[in-house]
């Protein structure tokens, strides 16, 4: 029968409906309009249950389970951290691909392309900040996910390999974060990565080769940037996606591990879910996941619009290392370790041993029980490790253990090379021309914020016993203008103290439009 005959037989309304219905079945891989409405209304599923068809016949849902055990649907025990990790990975891929439209990976154009993205591309800053914030969030979430998996003992048999792939994913995440860190090619990026790759050089076996492979040359330059870029946009994401596929496959194959209290030691009931404990994927689990996704996106978007802006320091300068150069925060623990001893041991051997140990935990843990009361030692160890990490991270911060001469420290605090600092943050009109000595309290109220900074300056100097009798002189001069209004001022900071051989002097220029206070 031809189409026209069909229409004549059924009537136009029925024909249109059957076409739409047909389309819906194809799109959902098995659900008709009535079935979809049933899902959206929360009606009980028909028998036989059509809602498994998108899983059994479709691609998008084929790896997702058709139901969850009720006990793993609440916030505890998973806190949905695995889902969150995968979601942040997806956000990174999307925002990363978007940024690739404008970013250029050569030293002579990288920084310029960053400036272009931030000032000349609509939503450029938004996309960049979203990419950076999600990256930092992903490192945190991935670590929390690992911690949760350890605490609930979910790594034990038969899920050892899942844990192993998870550790690989942790390394991929850290690698992605580290390689991406270099791409802006500013002072922060350049020196953090110089430190990181120098640590690779200290490896007892193959250190030199590893360093050369990463950098593509003796020091980080065009080759290094290109290699880091390729690692960041293709090699690590590819490995990440493949290992993630294996990881998630294993998760579903064994089933989400139940809360420890629900199983006897050595038992694993995840795959045997009684019908009354089944929570279907459509609509319940999907709804919760979409809600979690909505919350993540909302936090990200609000965060990036009102609270967080990724930094961009000065152009990378291979000849000048700024004072208090630091590693990215997730590597501060290694920096802390480096302050304790030999760089080869502390920077290479120990971290390698730690990660190897981490990967092998399920294979050397002979305690079959997942119950908290049977794992007091493991749980105590986990708490100690977390505490040690926190302490090491603090020790890795620039202020700890590395101190420049006191006048340099004061100068660094007030005129930092790469941060605004109190003086640059003053509103431009508060930088009143004159010579100010912090030893003489000036009662002038022409510039109240300037007075505050001068007092802070004197207080900071007094804190250092080596600067007995110390005081600072701040000279502010008009430098350039358009003939009527000044737009550039020169600020010189001099620090003097008793028996000073050479006073500390630092000059900085401040432009009206620079807006450091924002």
């Amino acid at each position, binding site marked *: 029968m031809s189409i026209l005959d069909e229409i004549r037989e059924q009537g136009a309304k029925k024909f249109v409906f059957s076409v739409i219905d047909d389309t819906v079945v194809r799109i959902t891989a098995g659900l008709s309009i009535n079935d979809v409405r049933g899902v959206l209304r929360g009606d009980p599923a028909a028998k036989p249950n059509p809602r498994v068809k998108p899983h059994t016949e479709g691609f998008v849902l084929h790896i997702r389970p058709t139901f969850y055990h009720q006990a793993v649907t609440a916030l505890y025990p998973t806190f949905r951290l695995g889902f969150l990790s995968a979601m942040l990975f997806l956000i990174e891929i999307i925002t990363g691909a978007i940024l690739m439209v404008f970013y250029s990976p050569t030293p002579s154009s990288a920084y310029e392309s960053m400036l272009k993205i931030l000032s000349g591309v609509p939503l450029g800053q938004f996309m960049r900040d979203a990419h950076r914030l999600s990256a930092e969030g992903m490192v945190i979430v991935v670590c929390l996910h690992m911690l949760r998996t350890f605490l609930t003992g979910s790594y034990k048999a038969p899920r050892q390999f899942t844990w192993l792939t998870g550790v690989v994913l942790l390394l991929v995440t850290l690698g992605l974060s580290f390689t991406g860190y270099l791409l802006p090619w500013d002072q922060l990026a350049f020196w953090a990565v110089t430190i990181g790759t120098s640590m690779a050089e200290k490896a007892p076996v193959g250190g030199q080769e590893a360093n050369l492979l990463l950098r593509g040359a003796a020091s980080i330059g065009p080759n290094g940037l290109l290699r880091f870029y390729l690692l960041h946009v293709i090699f690590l994401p590819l490995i990440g996606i493949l290992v993630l596929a294996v990881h998630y496959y294993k998760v579903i194959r064994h089933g989400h591990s139940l809360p420890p209290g629900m199983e006897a030691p050595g038992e694993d009931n995840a795959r045997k879910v009684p019908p009354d404990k089944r929570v279907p994927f459509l609509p319940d689990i999907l709804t919760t996941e979409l809600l979690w996704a909505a919350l993540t996106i909302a936090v990200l978007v609000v965060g990036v619009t009102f609270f967080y802006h990724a930094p961009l320091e000065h152009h990378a300068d291979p000849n000048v290392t700024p004072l208090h150069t630091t590693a990215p925060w997730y590597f501060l623990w290694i920096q802390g370790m480096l302050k304790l001893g030999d760089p080869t041991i502390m920077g290479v051997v120990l971290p390698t041993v730690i990660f190897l140990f981490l990967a092998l935990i399920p294979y050397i843990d002979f305690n079959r029980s997942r119950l908290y009361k049977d794992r007091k030692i493991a749980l105590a160890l986990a708490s100690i490790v977390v505490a040690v990490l926190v302490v090491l991270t603090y020790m890795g911060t620039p202020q700890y253990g590395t101190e420049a001469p006191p006048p340099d420290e004061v100068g660094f605090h007030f005129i930092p090379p790469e941060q605004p600092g109190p003086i640059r943050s003053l509103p431009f009109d508060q930088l009143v021309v004159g010579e100010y000595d912090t030893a003489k309290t000036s009662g002038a109220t022409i510039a109240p914020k300037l007075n505050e900074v001068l007092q802070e300056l004197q207080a900071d100097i007094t804190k250092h016993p080596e600067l007995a009798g110390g005081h600072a002189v701040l000279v502010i001069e008009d430098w350039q203008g358009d*003939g009527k209004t000044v737009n550039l001022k*020169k600020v010189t900071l001099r620090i003097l103290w008793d028996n000073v051989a050479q006073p500390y002097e630092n000059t900085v220029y401040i432009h009206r439009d620079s807006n450091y206070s924002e």
Partner: protein
Amino acid sequence: MQTRIALGAVLFMLVIAVVGYVIINEGLLPGQTGRMQKFDAQVQGRSIESGALLFQNNCVGCHGVQGQGIPGVAPALNAADLFSGERLKKVGYSGKVEDYIRGVISVGRPIKTNPSYPSPMPTWGQTFGGPLRDDQINNLTNFIMNWKDQALAAPSAPAAPAVQAVGTSLDTPLPAGVADNGQKIFAAQGCAACHSLKLDEKIVGPSLAGVAARAGDRIKAADYKGKATTGELYLRESIVQPGAYVVPSFLDGVMPQDYGKAKLSPQDLADLIAFLLTQK
């Protein structure tokens, strides 16, 4: 369950609103001052700041602290004739002022072209073998261009008051010299462009580190042909009669001959000598 669905919808509405707010404030249309334009102004401002620091560290020795130039050493940059296009016409350059500045900084003057400036400008751009990156040259250019409005608005500089020149004789009495003033004259007259105060650093002429001690020995050298009888007089002679004695391995006729004849007053000379006497 219904709460979750409703909450999900509300969250997405919030996200739609916030993203809309961002898009509206970006400054998409020409003529608006949105975030993009403000950021651009920031970038420009900070470029000028970096340029100012680079200028201070590399250029003031020849071009003067405020870009006013030093006669016989380097031309003024903070000058109306540069930005009005007059200077470019004179040298026959047909492009934009900004390109001229950027090009000259980057290439310098690898060959001597202008007899008024005997000491040629160094090459600064890395492309041509100099020490500065392209973005630094860009910052310097932006800083110098920032003098444009100021220079064009300023009344043409009044002719410098004629200096009562001290003359080239070694006998005329000099007032007491103040070393601090002498230090300023050392910079303002462009001595720093050719004479370093660091030990053994040769720029064009010999380093003046330790010259206070050395001056007395110079006059005792076998090849000394001048008329000074004390170290102090040697210093004076070197300034006002540069050709009287040339330190071995340096060339005659490079140091300007008119410090005594035209540029320095008696007080200036005294201050300069006092300053040089502090270089032990």
